[in-house]
């Protein structure tokens, strides 16, 4: 597999295919319908993503039913999903669970991955900490593991409550980092397992569902090596924050375009508001942020794919996570401002992006975590 061989023309073709799909299947009306639905996303669209475009399989390894591409290609897809604010379990199932399973390896992973690649199984990975954080570093009390596993490798059961599980109520398979005798390990639990309680929670970002998941003597299977979660989680965070960064860039660009269009249309004081320099400079600042975020997200994708001339993956992913989180939040905030009163209405899409921006920024811990992660990755 050499992802360096995908030309920019091929990436452009991929982008336009995905954009056409999103325009047809995930316009604002469709997004709002999905938000109001029981499941939180349109499962027909999810199936078509797999059948027509093969998006779920794109960046998974060929030996597990994937197409063997990398983050460089997936970035294009994620940007378009972010742009549309597509509600779907893609981040939880393909990115979080998919990456964890590939990193863990072994029979159990090989059993689950083909379904994820085909879009017929959805999986998710619960944040390991009691406060919803993702650290095994043990820096604070919040870092305590939310779930513990019983001893042994057969007939393992889980005990505890994972508080903020992405798509936790709907996923077919739940992956959990649980404390075990050999240290934190990765475990898989089926949706119909005994002693499993899943409680959907009210959410800030209406386009992503979150649940609390409680395990009471719930049967689970070890994935990969016993006590092997630390390395898995490190890889998951690099990949997932890079994937999130691509989504953030796509969504931020959508906000910039919405503001630019509105600034050309809206007339006050007999002029287009975009001719007022305060508005113009705001737009230029938004553009600057989007360009820099775009560069950071792309470079992180190249780094995570291990391309020859790319920077160290951990550093580039941490840069992208910080820069893209800050950029998207700033741009989504200014998008409301450029729109004035209409931007503060429920009917306008601006708040959907603002909600996504704030929730995405905090999803893996937020600024206090991502800036320290960058310093740690850079050796400070």
């Amino acid at each position, binding site marked *: 597999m050499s992802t360096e061989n995908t030309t920019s023309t091929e990436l452009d073709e991929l982008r336009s295919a995905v954009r056409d799909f999103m325009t047809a299947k995930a316009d604002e009306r469709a997004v709002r319908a999905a938000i109001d639905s029981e499941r939180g996303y349109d499962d027909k669209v999810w199936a078509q993503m797999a059948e027509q475009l093969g998006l779920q399989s794109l960046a998974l390894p060929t030996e597990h039913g994937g197409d063997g591409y990398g983050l460089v290609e997936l970035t294009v897809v994620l940007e378009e999903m972010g742009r549309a604010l597509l509600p779907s379990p893609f981040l939880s199932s393909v990115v979080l669970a998919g990456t964890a399973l590939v990193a863990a390896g072994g029979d159990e992973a090989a059993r689950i991955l083909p379904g994820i690649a085909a879009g017929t199984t959805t999986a998710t990975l619960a944040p390991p900490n009691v406060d919803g954080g993702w650290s095994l570093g043990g820096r604070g009390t919040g870092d305590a593991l939310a779930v513990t596993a019983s001893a042994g490798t057969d007939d393992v059961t889980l005990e505890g409550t994972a508080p903020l599980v992405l798509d936790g109520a709907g996923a077919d398979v739940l992956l959990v980092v649980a404390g075990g005798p050999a240290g934190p390990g990765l475990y898989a639990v089926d949706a119909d397992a005994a002693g499993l309680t899943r409680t959907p929670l009210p959410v800030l970002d209406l386009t992503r569902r979150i649940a609390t998941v409680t395990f009471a003597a719930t049967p689970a299977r070890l994935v990969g090596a016993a006590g092997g979660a630390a390395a898995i989680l490190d890889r998951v965070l690099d990949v997932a924050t890079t994937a999130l960064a691509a989504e953030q860039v796509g969504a931020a660009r959508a906000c910039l375009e919405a503001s630019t269009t509105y600034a050309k249309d809206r007339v006050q004081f007999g002029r287009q508001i975009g001719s007022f*320099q305060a508005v*113009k400079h705001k737009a230029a600042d938004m553009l600057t942020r989007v360009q820099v975020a775009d560069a950071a997200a792309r470079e992180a994708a190249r780094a995570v794919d291990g391309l020859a001339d790319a920077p160290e993956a951990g550093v580039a992913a941490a840069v992208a996570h910080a820069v893209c989180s800050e950029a998207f939040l700033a741009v989504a905030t200014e998008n409301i401002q450029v729109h004035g009163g209409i931007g503060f209405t429920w009917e306008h899409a601006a708040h959907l992006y603002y909600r996504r921006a704030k929730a995405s920024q905090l999803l893996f811990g937020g600024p*206090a975590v991502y800036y320290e992660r*960058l310093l740690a990755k850079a050796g400070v």
Partner: protein
Amino acid sequence: MPSEMDQFVAEVTAFLDAHATRRARAAEDVAWGEGEDRITYFSTDPPDVENAKVAAAKAWQRTRYDNGFGWITGPTEFGGRGLTTLHDLVYDGLEAGYDVPETGVLSLIGLGMIGPTILAHGTDELKQRYLPRLYSGEIIACQLFSEPAAGSDLASLETKAVRDGDGWILNGQKVWTSVAHHAAIGLALCRSNPDNPKHKGITAFVVDMTAPGVDVRPLRQMSGGSEFNEVFLTDVHVGDDHRLGPVDGGWGVALTTLMNERASVGGEGAGPVGRAVALPFLTELLRANGRLDDGAARRRLAELHADTLATEYLNHQMVRKFRAGEQPGPEASVSKLMYAQNLTRGAHFAAEIIGPRLIADTGAWGTYSWTELLLSTPALRILGGTEEIMKNILAERVLGLPKEPGIDTRSPFRELRRSAGATESRSA
């Protein structure tokens, strides 16, 4: 079989090994407490030191040129090597690993902006006359654009060019002219037709800086040194063969220069100045001041580092676009804005950590030395198009937002209000 680029790399490496010494460590990577602690952007050197540095810069450029690296992208008939921008970037990357004289005095304006403008708009004779001399380091060129009443609004410049037989007579004043005191030629924009609208009555000339009537007076910068000047032009005669571009068509010439200016101001950042945003150096700064566990300081450092690396990634992307034969988009302007911001933040971050020891020279290593950068960074938001003008350009040209409503692009230049004072005196 080695690729063409591999051969180029081997050739450059052989040249550099023969003529320069490899650096023991990256330029921005100094051992804490040892060696040079100055972080200079604008020079504060006394004239003899400055002149010696200019001579060394010219000599090194000559060596580059004699070995085929003086003008890598230039056409061969004018002394260039005929290679691509990518070759140029590869050369820069390799040279950064060696200790060589700093050549900014030649490259930033002369080679980076004036050379490309002469190449794009000059007659073959003019190109033959000046380009080899410029790129071999024999002469330095300056940019005679800004005037006291024409800065951001460059097209309102007033220096007059009047026909005189088969030549022209120039009269007027230029200002903020960097390196004019070392320059043999200058690219001057002049008002040739005040009856046309302001953009349509300008003509560009290559001016001999040693000609009678050219008076260069140094101006002292807030940073203490004198690298820019005011230049008075009094009845300066210029032959019509030194005109660049059509009569009254000088604005197109100016745009070529300005485009190259934006491209050249962004990408720098290596060298000693790079230390101001280099994580290892700033980490040592924290350690030396016992602040490595200070959460607020760590947060500011991390924020700066994230933006610095993201800007670096943006520059990498520009390089990759060149490599793929694509034209970069707004990256150059964005990079310029970010560069100024990052360097400014680096300087103020260091100042916060150093505290009062920065405000007077106690002789302690790496403390008062930061004042040079602190006194230089304000210029980065002004030169080469102010921050505000860059934002106008991004918003109008990239995003397509409407221009400011204005009448001054249509009316004849002589009818425009050019300063508040002028209007008052007219109404008095």
